[in-house]
């Protein structure tokens, strides 16, 4: 099912709809929930410490998590290869933003390294989209799924997958794992969910082309 919005086409299939609903449900959960305190166990004693989150930090993290959820939703249903690349880059920026307000130097270092990898990932991402446009003449996933046009070259598909992997898949997720030391679930969980969703979508995109 297609939903045309000018020249932007939103594409609903059972697969994309289920991913979209997952992203939507989690975004609603992020809107509705309050942050949890991160617990650190004191080894050798029956004690634990908690990390409090300031109200400005909470608001900013909640906002970035919602933005990340919206970007993930957009990436799930977009019917255009370039829009998918833009939403994926936006997911990367929002992931950095979710932990950017944390006052821990270790987390900020990890966020910075992850941001560098995500920025590097946009190069093959947009390059792949450009190669698809140059070889097939279109960026529409609906047109590309038909057998009338020539198939997109394997290098373009590889670039798209590599770009999405740079947003948080193995082996580039090392810095992302360190970012989870930041206090404030459930906002931090949006980082891993968004990466998983865009990876699932890119598999569908690549198989369609």
């Amino acid at each position, binding site marked *: 099912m297609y939903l045309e919005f000018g020249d932007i086409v939103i594409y609903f299939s059972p697969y994309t709809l289920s991913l979209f609903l997952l992203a939507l449900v989690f975004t609603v959960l992020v809107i509705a929930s309050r942050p949890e305190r991160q617990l650190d166990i004191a080894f050798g004693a029956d004690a634990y410490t908690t990390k409090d989150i300031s109200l400005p930090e909470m608001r900013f993290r909640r906002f970035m998590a919602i933005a990340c959820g919206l970007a993930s939703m957009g990436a799930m249903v977009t019917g255009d290869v370039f829009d998918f690349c833009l939403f994926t880059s936006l997911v990367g920026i929002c992931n950095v933003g979710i932990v950017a307000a944390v006052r821990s130097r270790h987390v900020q270092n990890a966020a*910075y390294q992850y941001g*560098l990898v995500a920025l590097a990932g946009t190069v093959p991402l947009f390059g792949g989209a450009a190669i698809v*446009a140059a070889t097939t003449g279109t960026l529409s996933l609906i047109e590309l799924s038909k057998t009338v046009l020539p198939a997109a070259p394997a290098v373009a598909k590889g670039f798209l997958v590599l770009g999405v992997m740079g947003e948080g898949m193995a082996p580039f997720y090392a810095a992302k794992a360190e970012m989870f030391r930041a206090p404030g679930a459930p906002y931090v969980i949006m980082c891993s969910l968004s990466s998983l969703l865009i990876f699932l979508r890119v598999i569908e995109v690549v198989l369609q082309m």
Partner: protein
Amino acid sequence: MTGALYSWGLLVVLGSAVIGFGALAVEKDDLHRLLLIDLVEIASIGIIALIGTDLAEALILPGLVVGIAELLALSQIYLMKEDLQDRPIQIPRIEVLQESPAPLILSMILIVYGIILSGFTGGAVAGLGVIFFIAARACTENFHLLELASGFSWVLWIAAFFVFMFLPGYWYLALMGAAVGILIKVITKMSLMGVMWEARS
């Protein structure tokens, strides 16, 4: 012949990207890594441009905007993690800028020309005039007013696009709305940069 040139261009750009990634692997300093990443991103813009069709123009701007957004985000994180946020900035005192009427005249010319041009280009020219005036005269402005103007102009720009899509008969109104919206948006964004520069000095 032209097709072969595009192929050579693509080869050069991909080679540049590979060299950039190689430099990135060797570099240890975080700030230099950021600069190298930005350099590599220019290569991605080059790949998009080398499609060589009208579509390339429509693709370059979002690619640039995303790249700039990521660069700004990472720059801010770098400032925070290195604790460089409240470093005072000294603007050099240049007599010809700060005491003569020339900056005011030049700024007015740039602003008027930018308004006549309108659109993104006009916004950039007028914004440059505003930055030049702020840098020369060392005056301060209200952040919130600039941000408010920027926000409303962005809404106007988006609304104009909605009019284009759903009410194509009113295309002229949408065209003028989009031109004015993006003009004010770019002016306020650039002047905000100039004001922030000045406010920290």
